[in-house]
């Protein structure tokens, strides 16, 4: 390739400028606002002072309510990431076999992923209605008394996670299918000659060969989990009480109540979380690539 075909370095300027102006600068200004008393109740924005500059952060970590948002977000991320990966992988293994109507089954599993989370949320709100929802009505036919899926504080958050897993696993499955299809069949043939069973083939060939794919799905799930908003908003709007509130629904409400400084504080905490988790995930990903 001749040297002139490379783009010169100053081509970066435009992108860099846009990136700085549209991403970096607003981000930094946002973090700056978290050290102020910015709110809708006053048109003045005052710096909190050096003695009190971390007041918003102290409040975010000491207030049971905000701490609960953080805990819920992490729980949501942890549970949905693991379950989506496990179920997505199981479905992918099933749907890479010789099954009748293979593409139909794949499409059925994938369809929820293309629906908007708000629509899924609204549909499930009606399905999970305690009195005349589809789920409890069906259970009633079999003589089982249904529970209050979205309004019982002990169950609500698990229902939200369940709906999110239902919606998200088809997408993860598709990525896994692509990963499995890229594994050369010669490995399986060799294993079969050696007399390996289905489980041994899965454990010794499929799983290790899928490690890079799994890193990708994990990164996607973790990032999605941390910034979940629409599913919770549509299903429970954080209720009953505050039990299903996650960071982004919390941030949205802080802004709604006009507590702008608290909103930016929570956003800044989220940013730091994402940066740390992103850093480690990318490192893990790179290590996998090196090992290959």
């Amino acid at each position, binding site marked *: 390739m001749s040297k002139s075909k490379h783009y010169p370095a100053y081509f970066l300027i*435009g992108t860099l400028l846009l990136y700085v102006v549209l991403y970096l600068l607003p981000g930094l200004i946002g973090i700056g606002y978290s050290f102020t008393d910015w709110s809708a*109740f*006053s*048109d003045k924005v005052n710096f909190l002072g050096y003695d009190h500059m971390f007041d918003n952060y102290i409040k975010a970590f000491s207030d049971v309510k905000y701490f609960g948002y953080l805990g819920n977000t992490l729980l949501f991320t942890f549970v949905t990431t693991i379950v989506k990966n496990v179920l997505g992988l199981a479905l992918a293994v099933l749907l890479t076999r010789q099954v009748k109507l293979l593409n139909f089954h794949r499409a059925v599993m994938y369809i929820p992923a293309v629906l908007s989370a708000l629509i899924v949320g609204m549909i499930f709100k009606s399905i999970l209605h305690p009195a005349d929802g589809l789920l409890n009505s069906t259970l009633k036919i079999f003589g089982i008394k249904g529970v209050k899926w979205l309004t019982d*504080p002990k169950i609500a958050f698990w229902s939200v996670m369940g709906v999110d897993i239902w919606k998200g696993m088809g997408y993860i499955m598709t990525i896994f299918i692509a990963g499995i299809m890229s594994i050369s069949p010669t490995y399986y043939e060799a294993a079969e000659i050696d007399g390996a069973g289905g489980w041994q083939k899965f454990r010794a060939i499929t799983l290790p060969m899928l490690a890079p794919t799994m890193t990708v799905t994990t990164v996607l799930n973790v990032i999605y989990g941390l910034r979940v908003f629409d599913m919770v908003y549509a299903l429970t709007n954080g*209720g009953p009480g505050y039990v299903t509130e996650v960071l982004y629904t919390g941030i949205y409400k802080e802004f*709604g*109540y006009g507590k702008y400084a608290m909103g930016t504080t929570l956003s800044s905490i989220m940013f730091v979380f994402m940066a740390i988790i992103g850093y480690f995930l990318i490192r893990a990903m790179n290590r996998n690539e090196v090992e290959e």
Partner: protein
Amino acid sequence: MKKTLALLLTALMLLSLAACAQPAPAAEAAPAAPATEAAAEATEAPVQKDITLTFMASQDWVQDAELALAQKFTEQTGIKVDYQIVPSDQYPNLLQTKLNSGECTDIFCSQAGRFDIVTTLNVAKNAADLTAEPWVATMEATAAAEVTADGKVYGQPMQDTSAVWAIAYNKKIFSDLGLSIPKSWAEFTAVCDAILATGVTPVYEPVSDGWHHVLWFAEMGAAYEKAEPGLVDALNGNTKKIADSAIMKTAVAQIKEMADKGYWGENYMADVYADQPAKMASGEYAMTVANQGLPQQIADLNSGLTADDIGFFVIPLADNQMLNVNPVGPTRFIYSGSANVEAAKQYLAFLAQPENLQYMIDNVAKFQNLPFSGLTPKYAGTVKEFYDMYSEKGTVLQTAVKYVNPQWMEIGKEIVSVIQGMQDDMTMLGNLDKNRADQAMAAQDAAW
């Protein structure tokens, strides 16, 4: 040469990007755009004919009858009125942003309230003084007090403020069971028990919407003040906390009792406000907290119930027997930074003409009266009977006490946490105090 060309291309690309970026803020500010247009027109040509007044309101606040009046106004004066209607969940935020950034419409609407117009709207800075307007004298005193700050009138009420949130009951169910209107909490629970025993759910309470169940707590303001005289002033002066009020604690406990005893049915957490008329019409529920528009809505469903089959009595929590009035409603304000203050004043004066107010009452189903003198209200018999039943009146909590109305939805969540056993009533009342303090300090209230 190539380098120069590349540089030139980069510059061009940046320029085009900048050009692309430009429409974005303009689009965001679109609702305010006509204001600047109008301002420009006003300065270029002082002839009134070219003025377009911009008017911003939350959905449901502007009635078709008002739009018809606006058209009539345009025909008479040549001044056009451009109504911008915003979804209600986004409205308070958008209005605050516009006021804080100095880009508001000529006329804006907001809930009034003698405290909120100072702390939230900052009317002294953001709204034009309307004290000298001719229609101010015709405003009812209670309504006028809620749009007045420091002796100056800033707003014009736009809706019926006479409707009261009370318990609407199915008269047929009551007479079948030989029940009469309860006058105390004990009588109310006895009525509920009697209804529950027949398999009918005593109360339809749509908690799912987040705001409706708060009415049980906040509409009792007058009863709280009666039980603990001086409470309202003490709360506003920050010499007493909500958590220190025994009567408010009682009310919260009674709300929980209703839920625990099954008066609200099995699925109140999932019930929605939109189903209220249908649920009441079905006969599955005997009572619900509603205002006086409900009987007509139930009658319109053709369920066999007429408007007169629905009666009202005040919410008897904390043994309340006073009519809970709330003279606050959506209100029109003129933006002080508007270039068309005079034309806007002219429009408000037009809307406040007796024949136009009467036109609104006659043509808007949910309006039974408007808070101005010299009008003919259209109260139905059952509603009038209800208003006449109570000799004492008192103001609701969210209007009498500062920093309650802005945290309405949060109070809803706090109450649910109590009902569901996730926190006790003292924690809830303490959280209300905490939220009030947050807002008071942000507003630099001297009492905090």
